[in-house]
């Protein structure tokens, strides 16, 4: 803080009233004014003299200026109000709208992503299910093939080749008969295709009576037939689709005696 005498001698009070002091000097003078009441009294006198001087030399402004000022005041108030309302409402609203828009866009994007993922997952699940079915089928086929192979390879299995007669000279059927396990398998790869109205049917001859061994499904290369005890021969006839209870002997295409 400045010394009281320094302030007085250097004319700081006059400079203070005239507004000529810089910020730091102003603060120092103001501090001194609080600290020394006599300084404040001196300031009051200087201020009062300058003020009187001002009043003595007053110049009346144009009378309508006052109304213009008060109108300007109201205009600036309205502007301020508009300004603050802009600030207080529209700006936050704008921000909120922007955030909402971003959230909406984000949501749509995530929804589309989610849908795509869902479709992909469904596709994968379907493929997986198909693969599982295929695997089941293959393992089942494999087990069957293994069983067939072991059966065919079995030393107790006897192999008979049935050759087509004049009715169907190209026909050839291989049959595997196992009397121990009581199984019959036939290979039908060389059996010509029939039309839809006809089926091949296999018969076993037991004491002169033809017993049904089953319909031959030519689409399967190797298939199991019914094993019939004490069969003397194996016979294949062409029957109406679905098979018959008794063989149509005129349609016998091949036969072979066994044992």
């Amino acid at each position, binding site marked *: 803080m400045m010394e009281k005498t320094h302030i007085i001698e*250097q*004319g700081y009070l*006059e*400079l*203070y*009233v*005239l*507004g*000529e002091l810089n910020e730091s000097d102003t603060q120092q003078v*103001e501090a001194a*004014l*609080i600290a020394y009441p006599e300084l404040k009294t001196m*300031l*009051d*006198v*200087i*201020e*009062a*003299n*300058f*003020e*009187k*001087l*001002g*009043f*003595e*030399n*007053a*110049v*009346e*402004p*144009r009378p309508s*200026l*006052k109304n*213009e*000022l*008060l109108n*300007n*005041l109201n205009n*600036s108030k309205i502007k301020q109000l508009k300004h603050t309302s802009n600030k207080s409402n529209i700006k936050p609203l704008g921000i909120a709208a922007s955030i909402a828009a971003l959230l909406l866009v984000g949501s749509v994007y995530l929804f589309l992503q989610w849908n795509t993922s869902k479709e992909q997952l469904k596709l994968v699940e379907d493929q997986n299910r198909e693969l599982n079915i295929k695997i089941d089928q293959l393992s089942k086929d494999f087990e069957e093939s293994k069983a067939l192979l072991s059966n065919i390879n079995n030393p107790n299995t006897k192999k008979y080749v049935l050759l087509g007669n004049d009715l169907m000279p190209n026909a050839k059927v291989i049959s595997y008969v196992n009397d121990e396990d009581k199984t019959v398998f036939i290979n039908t790869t060389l059996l010509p295709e029939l039309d839809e109205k006809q089926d091949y049917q296999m018969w076993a001859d037991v004491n002169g009576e033809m017993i049904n061994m089953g319909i031959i499904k030519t689409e399967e290369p190797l298939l199991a037939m019914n094993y019939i005890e004490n069969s003397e021969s194996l016979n294949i006839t062409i029957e109406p689709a679905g098979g018959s209870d008794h063989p149509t002997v005129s349609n016998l295409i091949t036969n072979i005696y066994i044992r």
Partner: protein
Amino acid sequence: MDNEKDLISKLKSKDESALGLLYDKYSAALYGIIIRICKDEGLAENLLQDTFMTIWKKSDAYDDRKGRFYTWAYRIAKNKALNAIRKDKKLIQTEDLSVYKSKTEEQNIDIDHLKLKGAIKRLETHHQKAIELVYFNGLTHREANEEMGVPLGTFKSYIKQALKQLQELYIKVVTFIMILIEVIR
């Protein structure tokens, strides 16, 4: 004074009628300062309005412990007027020096109207001049002492002496009026 305190506290609470009353009281004195600095009626009117708008908006910044309301308002008015003429001068000077010259010659103002009146007229000439330069023309002490061709210290003592004489004159006036009042009674 209490009346003025009330007015100012109303001003701070944004009471328009308070601004109107303060305008009635101080506008002419402030206009006297502004027009003597800028010497242009149209500009001075704008600056006076601007001054009162600042008084209105910045009323919170006024602290009566730091001085009189008039002193605060005077500083605002003076600064606005000085800024306006500085801006004006700068503008004209960068464009054409001759325009500035012709402008200063053709002031659209009645100079007699601005001649100083009252107690200041009873001061010695150099004291009058010193007060006029710093108070009514808005010059700084440094500018003013150069203008008068005296050292800064001397100039400061001119101001002090002038104020002291003014004080004595005002006391005499007050005493005279009081005596006058007593006589009339």
